[in-house]
């Protein structure tokens, strides 16, 4: 009998030990819930027509800025309304006369979290026509950061090359220009009367590297490398070796640049110390290696090489020579301009397909090759925004057999075209986004 009891106890213990088996199934990443943002303008009486117009301009700027992030926000605008919402954010912009005089307006801005019924941002500024856009973008960025916890692109800018000054003339010159990310405030940066190619902005947004092909005929037609200081407006010659000195990009330390040189007859990528002028080889292969793009942490460099016969994208560790060379692209007739996203996760590039270039994107680990543009002219030269959410690129539309239009367009990293940043500004190519 005792034994029977023991055996029963044993069975019970075995049953408990057997336990249960659970199955976990992954639901996957969540979709983004778009945040409602209500922008409301209140222009207080007593303002002149010009000042009221300034108020409207700053309001339109806010609406336009937030509309870039259409995947994050559902933007609603109104004027002089009392808005009572339970969700999203309400941004109230109040324009009143300034005590500083008629050339100023007083801009009061408040952002309310409707769900918590709590004011999360409040600021009051005197704004003149001269600082209206800078201040407007800055206010929009402050609100964006409070809502998302991340920095926006609102105070970023683009540099690009345009032939606007000599459009339709016999000897065109292509100079460097700068504009806000939204296409406003274009200004000329260089006056070489030559052809500027492959610009690049430093990490601190102070310097611009670019190569120059001078119009005057010289013996060897060198493509020299220059650096422009955006603060002092001074230009300095960085490299003028035989052959090409181009495709330069800043390394993350700010002291070195990676560039393509062909002074030894074969185009290789080198690291150049800006202070000492010392050169170090990064690639060393009989094939042509061009177009470097370095990841944010400086551990990976994407470049273009014809090692397999056609032009394909490779990556390597730029801290040494030919270290960890990995082929990224295996398909495409001709791939060009590989550009690392600032977060280092993706590479955007142009590829020749169906008799034109289109923009593609691939993960840095060689997975997820996706096409971003199609049926939209010929699209080249992608450049990422600092938050890796947008890509600016140059797009060419053929109008007649002898005429084509080039403009800079902006799209999301998913391929949603936001719109053109240039229009009627000559042939605009080679955009580069600030950091």
């Amino acid at each position, binding site marked *: 009998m005792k*034994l029977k009891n*023991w*055996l029963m*106890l*044993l069975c019970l*213990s075995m049953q*408990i*030990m057997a*336990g*249960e*088996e*659970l*199955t*976990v*199934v*992954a*639901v*996957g*990443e*969540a*979709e*983004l*819930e778009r*945040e409602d943002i209500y922008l409301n303008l209140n222009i207080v009486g007593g303002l002149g027509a010009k000042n009221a117009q300034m108020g409207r301009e700053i309001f339109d700027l806010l609406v336009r800025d937030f509309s870039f992030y259409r995947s*994050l926000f559902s933007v609603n605008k109104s004027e002089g309304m009392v808005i009572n919402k339970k969700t999203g954010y309400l941004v109230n912009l109040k324009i009143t006369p300034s005590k500083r005089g008629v050339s100023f307006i007083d801009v009061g801005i408040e952002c309310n979290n409707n769900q918590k019924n709590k004011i999360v941002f409040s600021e009051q500024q005197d704004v003149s026509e001269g600082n209206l856009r800078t201040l407007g973008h800055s206010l929009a960025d402050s609100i964006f950061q409070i*809502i*998302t*916890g991340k920095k926006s692109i609102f105070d970023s800018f683009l540099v690009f090359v345009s032939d606007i000054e000599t459009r339709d003339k016999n000897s065109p010159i292509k100079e460097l220009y700068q504009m806000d990310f939204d296409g406003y405030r274009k200004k000329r940066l260089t006056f070489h009367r030559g052809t500027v190619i492959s610009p690049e902005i430093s990490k601190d947004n102070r310097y611009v590297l670019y190569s120059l092909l001078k119009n005057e005929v010289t013996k060897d037609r060198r493509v020299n490398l220059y650096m422009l200081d955006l603060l002092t407006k001074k230009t300095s010659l960085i490299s003028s070796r035989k052959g090409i000195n181009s495709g330069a990009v800043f390394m993350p330390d700010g002291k070195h640049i990676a560039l393509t040189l062909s002074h030894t007859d074969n185009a290789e990528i080198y690291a150049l110390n800006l202070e000492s002028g010392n050169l170090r080889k990064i690639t060393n292969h009989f094939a042509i290696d061009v177009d470097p793009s370095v990841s944010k942490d400086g551990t990976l460099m994407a470049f273009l090489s014809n090692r397999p016969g056609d032009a394909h994208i490779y990556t390597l560790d730029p801290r040494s020579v030919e270290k960890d060379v990995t082929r990224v692209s*295996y*398909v*495409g007739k001709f791939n060009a301009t590989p550009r690392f996203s600032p977060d280092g996760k993706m590479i955007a590039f142009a*590829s020749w*397909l169906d008799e034109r270039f289109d923009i*593609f*994107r691939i993960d840095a680990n060689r*997975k997820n*090759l*996706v*096409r*971003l*543009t*199609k049926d939209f002219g010929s699209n080249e030269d992608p450049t990422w925004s600092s938050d890796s959410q947008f890509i600016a690129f140059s797009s060419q539309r053929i109008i007649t057999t002898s005429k084509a239009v080039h403009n800079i367009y902006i799209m999301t990293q*998913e*391929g*949603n075209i936001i719109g053109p940043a240039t229009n009627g500004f000559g042939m605009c190519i080679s955009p580069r986004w600030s950091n």
Partner: protein
Amino acid sequence: MVIENKNLLSFLYLSAILHFILFIGIVFFSKFDFLGDSNILGIKKPIQISQIQSSVRIDVVAMPQQTLLELKAIEKNLKKGEALFKEEPTEIKKIEKTQDIINKDDLVFDKEKKSDNLMSLLKDMSKKDIDVKKRQKEMDVKAKAKEAGAVVGHNLDGELKKLVLRGNQLSQGTGLTGGGDVSGDMTALNLYASGLPDHIRPYWKLPTYLKDKDYMCRIRIYLRPSGSLIKAHIYEASGNEEFDQKALSAVKKAEPFLAVPNDIQSRVSQGDIILGFPL
């Protein structure tokens, strides 16, 4: 029954004592268990968790013809059960039977004469056997494809093949992506559970300030045979209450789920399925 063999009796006693010590040990150590569930005795159960994940073989065979946005639109349509590409109507022509008139001069080749030796007979037999197996296999594949088509309302297999032709990097491939099983063998429970994410995903949304924060939570669900929810609770919290509540809310909004097959009803009602947000 009386056990007279003293050695056997002492062995049984010793075995029972050892098992008892083992049982006490398990009860004691189960207090340090991090898995939150307990049985009716209040003793925490050891839980075996298996994660459903499938792998697919994908090779890049050409530059993608479709853009990312187009592919997303296709995916949405597939979820809605709409046809991806419209089948072009095929014209069916009636063929009138005509009598084959064979003239004497039409015969070009003589009919091959079969040799009657043993080797050819064996060859014929094995060929017949292979043909029967091949036909059976083809029929099985067709039946499976038909079954899959019936679920989504259209021929998914055919559509994916068309996508391949359009250069969107889907192929049988040699490169493996995904960390799961490629064999495709799934238990009935796993098969049922693998269908749940599609129901939940339309409701699984996060605001900007919670996305890309690498939060993860797991929710245990208990379902009735009809697929309606008995209860759902946080099994593993993310550390952010709002994130957990968004996940829980997505589950509640998504019910009722598909009816639970008979053979797994008891397991599903006991909460054997855990949903991972996102993994």
